[in-house]
């Protein structure tokens, strides 16, 4: 539509920030001609996040400018190269300019249509990072004059049609008048975990014109820069994946008959039992069946055992896990129990479900996945619901391996997993005359005509075999 109101409406569509996960938190992305404050303590990732947004724009053909008052350009080039961003190459292509200057000069030149103003125009810049706005205010303190100056500066930049990112030095919980002047405030911070490790977190404090996700969201620095893991509302799957099956068979002799044919698509199954009852073997047997026999994809999210141990266990039953991973039929995601961050794993799981579309997901173990939030029953419930929502949206089947503590009144660790999950498989042992027997029971399975009661099973050279005969 040419000009007029229609064009304005078009222009208000958010643009991708280029930071995975951040668009979901911001409610769509970066609105054009807005001023975004990136505030946080030293080392919280403000500059990196800002550069990532500018570089992402430049790579899409939208030129950007980085104005630095403190960090020399040479350092920015070096730090950006760590994430694969070649700022010098972008400068040579005319898509970026790193301007080293002083806060006073920056304000003078911008507010008077001076040299900086002309540089922005020459480049046709669309995104601008000012690192940091704190220096502009520091020159005169948080006075009425400083407020007017910053207000004028933001308006001048917006007037250039720029999306502006302004870094701001702020300790935890500190606010500033600048928060009132900008359109969006993103706060970056650290949180000390109970085991004395820092967790990086980000929160959108305000975002004019956008329905953003509130609360704190974990983020990491990876080889490609920052990735944000939205804490809630992670389910952004492209709709249920069309399946050729309604029930996913397990391939475990006797078990499919007990289940009434298999697990219904979209089910989350709790596989619970005390240590040594064969939970991991049962999970691996299903992975092998799905990937090697059914020709579907399977994903494993592992945190207690290492991939090496899991591969050895699988090999002892003749299941070539390593080969299935190499062939791209099994996706293996491992995080040591010591480093598990529930939101990060759920975020990766959401991505794998959306992009890779496995039919089967094995989580070993659920206790390990929820371990970082174990102190808070409400958060455990929220994460479990998120997981179940992901599985439902993807239309796959997930088996969550859970350790049942002997003598505990619940089937699960927190006492709520059995209620949230669509199905519960219980593994147990009992002893008769010095001999221990294994049993399996389908305790619950929604949308299925399953058997009741416990049936014996054994673990032989080919895996688990359940002694159940129909009829």
């Amino acid at each position: 539509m040419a000009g007029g109101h229609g064009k304005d409406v078009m222009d208000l569509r958010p643009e991708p920030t280029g930071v995975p996960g951040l668009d979901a938190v911001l409610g769509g992305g970066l609105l054009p001609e807005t001023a975004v404050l990136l505030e946080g303590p030293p080392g919280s990732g403000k500059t990196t996040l800002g550069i990532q947004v500018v570089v992402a724009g430049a790579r899409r053909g939208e030129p950007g400018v980085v104005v630095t008052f403190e960090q020399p350009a040479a350092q920015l080039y070096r730090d950006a190269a760590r994430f694969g961003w070649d700022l010098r190459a972008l400068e040579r292509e005319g898509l970026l300019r790193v301007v080293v200057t002083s806060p006073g000069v920056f304000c003078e030149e911008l507010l008077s249509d001076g040299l900086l103003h002309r540089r922005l125009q020459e480049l046709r810049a669309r995104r601008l990072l000012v690192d940091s706005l704190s220096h502009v205010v520091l020159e005169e303190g948080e006075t009425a004059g400083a407020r007017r100056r910053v207000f004028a500066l933001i308006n001048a930049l917006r007037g250039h049609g720029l999306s502006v990112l302004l870094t701001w030095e702020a300790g935890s919980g500190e606010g500033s008048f600048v928060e009132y002047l900008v359109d969006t405030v993103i706060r970056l911070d650290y949180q000390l975990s109970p085991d004395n490790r820092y967790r990086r977190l980000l929160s959108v404090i305000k975002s004019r014109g956008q329905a953003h996700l509130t609360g704190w969201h974990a983020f990491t620095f990876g080889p490609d820069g920052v990735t944000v893991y939205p804490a809630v509302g992670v389910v952004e799957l492209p709709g249920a994946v069309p399946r050729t099956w309604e029930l996913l068979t397990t391939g475990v002799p006797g078990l499919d008959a007990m289940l009434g044919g298999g697990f219904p698509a979209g089910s989350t199954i709790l596989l619970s039992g005390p240590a040594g009852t064969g939970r991991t073997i049962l999970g691996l047997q299903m992975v092998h069946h799905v990937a090697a026999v059914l020709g579907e994809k399977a994903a494993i999210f592992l945190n207690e055992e290492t991939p090496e141990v899991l591969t050895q266990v699988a090999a002892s039953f003749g299941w070539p896990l390593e080969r299935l991973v190499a062939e791209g039929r099994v996706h293996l995601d491992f995080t040591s129990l010591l480093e598990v961050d529930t939101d990060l794993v759920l975020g990766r799981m959401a991505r794998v479900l959306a992009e890779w579309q496995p039919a089967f997901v094995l989580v070993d173990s659920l206790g390990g996945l929820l371990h970082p939030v174990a102190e808070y029953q409400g958060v455990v419930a929220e994460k479990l619901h998120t997981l179940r929502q992901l599985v439902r949206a993807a239309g796959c089947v997930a088996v969550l391996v859970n350790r049942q503590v002997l003598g505990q009144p619940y089937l699960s660790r927190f006492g709520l997993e059995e209620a949230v999950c669509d199905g519960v498989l219980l593994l147990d042992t009992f002893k008769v005359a010095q001999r221990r027997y294994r049993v399996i029971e389908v305790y619950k399975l929604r949308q299925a005509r399953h058997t009741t009661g416990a049936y014996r099973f054994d673990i032989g050279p080919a895996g688990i075999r359940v002694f159940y005969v129909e009829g």
Partner: protein
Amino acid sequence: MGRSEEVLKRVVRSPVTVALVRFLHRNPGLLDSAEGLAAWIGREPAEVEKALEELARLGLVEPLAGARRTLYGYTRDENLLEAVGKWLAGMERT
């Protein structure tokens, strides 16, 4: 002796001009005042101003009329840039 060599010979006469050229070469997008440059390289503004005048005469910096004061940018002369790059690389090796 070529023009670039003559320029560099004059640059090395003062530690301030050396510091300025090194900083400008690493920060080619700089646009700042003498006072701002003095802060960047950690020198007194008066001696930086004097050194900038000399570098402007040599064609290594470009004085620009700012809104309120003179601003400086790095040269865009390809021959000079190449010569300075080689000279700095040599200095860093020794």
